[in-house]
């Protein structure tokens, strides 16, 4: 009987410890211990995160996950992906199911504070737009009074939509779905007149429609949507690594370091470049960050600089054909700006 009691007590203890370790405060050690980064991504948004025909995840956000893996392990393949819906994403991050969330997630003060996340680097400056069938002959969002609007639930989009129509005294009927595929299907079936989400998303979604040319994206941008990676609050070390992985890609573009010339650039005489790539003598930049000094080299070698990642996944040579716009380097009139690596 004593045995029974003992094993029961052990079981209960194991259970409580098991739960307690669900969301550890030292994500870097956890990641190193398990040997891969668990990255929360979209369930399937062309150009941003989508598995290809052989099941490999590809896209702008996916490359960000790879950059973090490159910084930590020096190996872009050490990532596992968790597809998350707009609704499940925050719980997945809060509970520790994923180490970081790179899922077209808008940085808002509410998410930064009340939801217990941290945002800093913005990998895509976006804004909310509207898509309508050309046949409706709509030229501006202000003509949309009385329309049925398809929207994904639990997004900032849903809130902006309510605010915009209220502010402009327009009537509308929201048709709300949890999954992106369901919103697409409903829009295509004509259940609603308008599809609204971030403009980048609209470009991507338009491609998945049967006749992309029959749909037009309206000129209005009704919100600011800074999209970026999110981590749990209270783990500054991991937060630093995740944000600087992004800054490193921007910095590399600024230096003109590409995936192709990064090895060559190691021999550069420019002290900024040498420091960045970790070839300066006695540098501690990488180790202070909690990774190796080759972290920036590994990122550029693994996925390329910001411009390359952008062009490869969503740029002019891809079906999405998205302009750099706000996402050009600060020196070229955009907002992508990295603090000095020094």
């Amino acid at each position, binding site marked *: *009987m004593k045995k*029974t*009691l003992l094993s*029961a007590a052990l079981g*209960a203890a194991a*259970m*409580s410890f098991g*739960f*307690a370790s*669900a*969301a550890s*405060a030292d994500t870097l050690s956890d990641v190193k211990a398990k040997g891969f980064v668990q990255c929360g991504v979209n369930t399937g948004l062309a150009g941003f995160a989508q598995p290809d025909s052989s099941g490999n995840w590809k896209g702008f956000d996916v490359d960000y996950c790879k950059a973090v893996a490159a910084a930590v392990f020096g190996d872009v393949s050490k990532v596992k992906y968790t597809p998350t819906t*707009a*609704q499940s994403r*925050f*719980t997945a991050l*809060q*509970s520790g199911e994923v180490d970081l969330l790179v899922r077209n997630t808008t940085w808002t003060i*509410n*998410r930064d*504070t*009340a*939801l*217990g996340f941290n945002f800093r680097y913005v990998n895509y400056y976006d804004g909310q737009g509207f898509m309508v069938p050309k046949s*409706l002959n709509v030229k501006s969002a202000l*003509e*949309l*009074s*009385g*329309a*049925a609007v398809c929207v994904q*639930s*639990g*997004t900032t989009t*849903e*809130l902006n*939509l*309510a*605010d915009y*129509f*209220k502010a402009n005294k327009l*009537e*509308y*009927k*929201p*048709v*709300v*779905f*949890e*999954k992106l595929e*369901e919103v697409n*299907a*409903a829009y295509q*079936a*004509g*259940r609603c*007149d308008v599809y609204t989400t971030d403009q980048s998303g609209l470009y991507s979604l338009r491609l998945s429609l049967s006749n992309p040319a029959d749909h037009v994206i309206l000129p209005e941008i009704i919100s600011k949507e800074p999209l970026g990676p999110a981590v*749990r*609050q*209270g783990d500054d070390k991991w937060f630093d690594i995740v944000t600087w992985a992004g800054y490193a890609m921007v910095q590399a573009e600024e230096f003109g370091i590409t995936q192709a010339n990064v090895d060559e650039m190691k021999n550069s005489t420019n002290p900024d470049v040498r420091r960045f790539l970790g070839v300066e003598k006695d540098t501690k930049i990488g180790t202070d960050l909690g990774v190796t000094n080759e972290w920036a080299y590994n990122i550029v070698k693994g996925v390329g600089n910001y411009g390359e990642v952008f062009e490869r996944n969503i740029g002019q040579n891809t079906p999405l054909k998205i302009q750099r716009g706000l996402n050009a380097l600060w020196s070229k009139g955009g907002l992508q700006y990295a603090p000095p690596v020094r």
Partner: protein
Amino acid sequence: MTDHAIRVSSQKTEKASLLYDPKVRSIFFQILTAAIVVLAVWSISHNVATNLARANIASGYGFLAGRSGFDIGFALIPYSSDGTYGRAILVGLVNTLLIAFTGVITATIIGFIIGIGRLSKNWLIAKLCTVYVEVFRNIPPLLVIFFWYSGVLAFLPVARESWKLPIGMFLNNRGLFFPKPLWGEGAEAIPVALLIGVIITVFVGRWAKKRQMRTGQQFHTIWTGIALIVGLPVLTFLALGAPLSFDFPNAGRFSLSGGSVIAPEFVALYLALSFYTAAFIAEIIRAGIRGVSKGQSEASFALGLQPSQATRLVVVPQAMRIIIPPLTSQYLNLTKNSSLGVAIGFPELVSTGGTTMNQTGQAVEVISIWLVVYLAISIATSLLMNWFNARMALVER
């Protein structure tokens, strides 16, 4: 004999320590089980609290009073984005109850028809009903919902090519639009008249039954009841000078504006759950009727009852005793399956609660609300059905 008994009992006290006393054992294990349950609950809640505090996530139910900021497409109670999160969840709850209530009624009716149809002597009817049951019973409810939703959407015309129906109704893939009644002054008297009609009917029914018991004379309670329940409100309506006007739906730029609308999501979910659950109910009905022995109907024929009377007065009351308990489970299933409406964008409890959860990040609180609400609905349904079952149960004499 006495000696022997004493010896045995002393032996027992010697050898058997408390360890082998079944009473002590059972108490010990009960305490142990209770302790494990308490410990598990405590450790889970403690860990949740610790993890939430560590992640700097605010907890508690205060968020329910905050402004929701999102709109809901189908609300039976007044709601706008200026309403609170609590109100949004309430809108979802009302929609869930609406689906559950209408679904249960329709599923029961279809189930009765199909169940009795399977027992029909007509080969074609019996086989058709069998096919119905086998098809719907063997498809997951989510697929049935998708089937109806895409079926409804694909079948109906786009908004600008709406089908015109009589009395100013329109049908398109945005829903069924119908004139919205606008009640004028004094219209409150009409539901009062309806209520009075119902009450009088109940009394008439009791009186008629008593009279039949006493004298054997039958009274046309049904016709009197219909006259009272329909006639009284109609008379009141006319007496008030018909205080009713309609807001007719008109063609707008995108769809129809004005009037009332039943959304296709509601129709799809309602039809899917009704047809799906009806397959199970049909089997329960069939089992119930089969469960009444043949001698009962033979005996009633021998007493000179008509076949319809035999069914109504002898077979069905006995079948009900077999039918009601499993029927309760099906009603509960239908209510719980209504949460699948989230997949087709019907704003029921899980949908509005999910949006709230995502906007506020209060996952634990919202999930606890879901659990409590579904539990409450299910327990209420169970109690009602148990009461009904007790009324119908066989009174042994």
